[in-house]
């Protein structure tokens, strides 16, 4: 990696950006914490404790001991290790580092492609700001880093025959054990193969490069199979995404430009405006960049989960589509532009100072440790606040261990606090629950008319739901359900016969 950093220009900016984004992420650190992380840590802990990979479900009632397509094994172990050694704060700080590293590579790439440093900064700041909603401590954020690194290495190989291409298979092994989006590497290589086809170069050179990229693609596909599921990973990942997740998971829905993706709409307009006004002649743009950019647009409009991937890929490539000749015909703009170019070159071409780099890196690690320890307390308090308001504590205290119904995010809390005593109905894990089961969950969660049939089907004895329309409906069924817990945010009901069975052992805690 040092070759990448040292290449042609100095690395001060890259390090500074690493630090700044890291600090920025730390200051927004409470947003990094989220309930799926807790399940990943618990899973990781189990694997470390038992010394084997967890591919069977241990958390839910219905799928107990059934196969779990757990494609996040390595990231779960990493999270669990950091958690056990340094606490929950360090997991979030680690995520902040991962994100910071992504953006410093992004900056590096634009610098490497000789993009004016100020344009580089504009796209960097935009991408940092726009991806903020997805800065969360989950394995998904590893994808940002992998995608940026894969693009940089492939691009450097394509243009300079860089030897770092040999790293890619090893990275691919890590990626396929960390997250399900590993197939983006194939898309990147295929885009370069197609781009090569359209390039005006000597035929022999072109064919040679294309063949090598093709072999690389094959190697990447083969090494992907180095995972607990071997070749089955392909069928499982694609099958799961195209059947279960895309229909049931909110983040796989089309972006909501009123809320989550409001600002992204303006970003798309900005990109379109820039392309319409300033895009280069198409002959000057390598087609692989266009292809990757278009794929990122397609995947983002398809599912809002791809927001950050779209922003990162567009920030890497759109600046390469632009040239400002048209504006530079205007005198004062031309003057400013020349000055910017001069500063840009001066800033980037200063010689490296190894001592300065070491100082920056040391500051970074000090911050890492300090922040981890400092934030442990804050994060623990935040989780226990969730716990108090979630009712998980009530369930644990009163030993309500029969089969119950709750929403997925409450399932995460139950796993974190009540495992192994309480088994969950559902949680945020992917690859566990079947299509039919998810459909039944949908009927319950969205209160469809047939929800009572589903309750009967699964013999549900308690319901743990947020206060509101749902609980108001259950209140009307007071001959069947007994309200035993309500603290203002969540409500717990016990089925009347179950309540009669255990009423002497539990306390009723209903805030009125």
């Amino acid at each position, binding site marked *: 990696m040092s070759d990448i950093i040292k290449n042609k220009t100095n690395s001060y900016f890259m390090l500074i950006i690493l630090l700044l984004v890291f600090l920025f992420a730390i200051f927004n650190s409470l947003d990094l914490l989220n309930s799926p992380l807790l399940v990943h840590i618990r899973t990781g802990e189990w694997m470390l404790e038992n010394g084997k990979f967890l591919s069977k479900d241990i958390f839910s009632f219905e799928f107990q001991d059934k196969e779990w397509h757990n494609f996040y094994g390595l990231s779960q172990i990493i999270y669990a290790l950091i958690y056990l050694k340094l606490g929950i704060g360090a997991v979030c700080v680690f995520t902040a580092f991962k994100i910071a590293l992504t953006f410093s590579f992004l900056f590096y790439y634009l610098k490497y492609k000789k993009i004016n440093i100020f344009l580089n900064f504009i796209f960097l700041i935009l991408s940092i700001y726009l991806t903020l909603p997805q800065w969360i401590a989950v394995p998904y954020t590893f994808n940002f880093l992998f995608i940026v690194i894969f693009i940089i290495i492939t691009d450097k190989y394509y243009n300079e025959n860089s030897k770092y291409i040999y790293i890619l298979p090893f990275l691919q092994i890590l990626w396929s054990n960390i997250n399900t989006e590993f197939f983006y590497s194939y898309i990147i290589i295929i885009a370069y193969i197609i781009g090569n086809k359209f390039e005006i170069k000597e035929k022999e050179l072109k064919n040679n490069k294309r063949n090598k990229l093709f072999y690389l693609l094959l190697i990447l596909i083969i090494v992907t199979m180095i995972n607990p599921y071997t070749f089955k990973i392909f069928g499982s990942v694609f099958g799961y995404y195209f059947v279960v997740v895309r229909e049931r998971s909110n983040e796989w829905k089309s972006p909501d430009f009123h809320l989550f993706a409001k600002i992204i709409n303006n970003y798309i307009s900005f990109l379109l405006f820039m392309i319409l006004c300033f895009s280069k002649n198409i002959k000057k743009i390598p087609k692989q960049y266009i292809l990757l950019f278009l794929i990122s647009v397609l995947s983002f409009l398809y599912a809002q989960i791809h927001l950050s991937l779209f922003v990162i890929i567009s920030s890497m490539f759109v600046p390469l589509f632009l040239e400002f000749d048209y504006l530079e015909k205007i005198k004062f703009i031309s003057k400013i532009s020349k000055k910017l170019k001069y500063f840009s070159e001066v800033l980037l071409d200063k010689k490296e100072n190894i001592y300065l780099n070491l100082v920056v890196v040391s500051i970074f690690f000090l911050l890492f440790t300090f922040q981890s320890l400092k934030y442990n307390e804050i994060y623990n308090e935040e989780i226990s606040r969730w716990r108090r308001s979630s009712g998980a504590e009530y369930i644990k205290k009163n030993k309500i261990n029969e089969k119950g119904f709750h929403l997925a995010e409450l399932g995460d809390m139950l796993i974190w606090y009540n495992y192994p005593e309480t088994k969950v109905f559902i949680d945020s894990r992917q690859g566990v629950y079947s299509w039919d089961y998810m459909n039944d969950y949908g009927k319950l969660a969205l209160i469809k*008319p047939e929800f009572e049939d589903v309750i009967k089907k699964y013999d549900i004895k308690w319901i743990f739901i947020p206060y*509101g329309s749902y609980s*108001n409906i259950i209140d*009307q069924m007071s001959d069947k359900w007994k309200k035993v817990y309500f603290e203002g945010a969540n409500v717990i009901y016990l089925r009347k016969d179950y309540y009669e069975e255990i009423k002497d052992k539990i306390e009723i805690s209903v805030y009125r």
Partner: protein
Amino acid sequence: MRGNVFKIYYSELLFILIFCFIYFTKTNSILNSDTDLLWNIRQGDWILENKKLIMNKEIFTYLFDENNWTYLSWIANIIFSFLYKIGGFSAVIVFVELLITFTLYLVFKYLVNKKVNPFKAFFIIFLYSLYYMIHWLPRNVLFSYFFIVVWFIIIDAYYSEKDKKKLYFLPILNIIWVNIHSSFLYGFIIGAMFLFGMILEGLLEKNWEKIKETKFLFFIGFISFLTTFLNPFGWKGHLEFLNSFIYSKKSYEFFYSRIMEYLSFDFHGGILFNLLFVILIFLILFYKKKKLNLPYIFLFVFWQNSGLKFSRHIAVFGLIIMLTLPQMIEIDIKFNWLIKFKKYLSKFNIFHSNSKYFDVRIFVVIVALFFIFGIQKTFENFNGIKMEIFNKRFPVASTEYLKKNRIEGNGFNNYFAGGYLIWEFYPEKIVFMDPRATVYPEETLESFYHIYDFGNYAFKLLEVYNIKWLFLSKEDFTAIALRYREDIVDIVYEEEQYVIYKLKENKNWLDEKEVDINE
């Protein structure tokens, strides 16, 4: 001259083809899309019966008697009501389809007159009609789409050809627009984009003449703006439009969170629309002309932004793509088969024409099509086309039951069903809520959604409004909750999708359910 009469032109041929496509494939879906047409016809009936333009009397909901709603669509209401009287739904729907086709015809004519290759124009219109298609509904908004195209063509004539004469039509056209649909300010957005674009181009090119020219455009815009006050409500008429853009009014929050057409478009379900968006970027990147007109870029980007946000604006974005994209791209691909096909067409006397937009021939075609399809209903019952409301889409059976067994007292109804109840019960005032929505004060909207969502005070509100029966979709939360309250309500009618509940005699909504409480 005589020879020209027997020539067939691409534009007229395209008109007939598009119309036939819409008629034979979309008629049923257009008629059964939503209930807006139904209450619009009823409003038109009232206007014609009472010969009043301002509906100061509320005629559909029993909640209030006076109506302060500034609904700027009286011309559209009269047109729909009149058409329904002369030819039933058939005449209304065929008119709507002719209006959609004529809007596309104008786009094609404009592009051909701007020297865009007719095949390229046809290709883009064909592709992005899919965006426009989203809003092919029997609604007043279709008139706005027509006016958007007309405004664009007129202002562009001034921008590109310095044609001042056409600009004088804008204030006159605007008087019609403001009285036909509340989206008349879209025209000013188009004008503003041209104005800014021209000023910026003038500054960048140091073309002071161009900047001076904006004065006249601004002047016409100002006169046009003054004419917008020529509506039955005067200045108050503008509030209707502004409210739909400004979030300040609480009632509009309901729109942005609940009404389908105000939500973002679902590209997940409509994967084709996603692909079209990507194709759009692809065409721009690969075939963009060296220098583009800034007004087109501004308009393009503005409506892209609005289209992604509100699915209903994708239709406008589609129209703007059709109008601007063929002028922004240069495709040099020469297909031999296309050249041969062109030659082949000329054998049949099919040519490209530079004739005026409003050629006599096109009016003959329109009248003929309206007569054949709308009045004579020549092709009704052909290929499954029936000018009837679907039982599955509308609560036909439940409404029929309610008509025969009218339950006394105030009712509460599902939002969508409100439009159909109006249609069947007018002139009786029966609904609690209907898809006009903005006619209702904020408190009523809040109460409606609170009951609809079965909020904490749902029963209290049912008591306050003295509700005796509820006409609900089976999926409504309140409908689900009431299934467990047999102690206070009876299900008097139930069909596949809808259910009617009636409050029991001597029962109160606030009656507690009798249960064994062992606390």
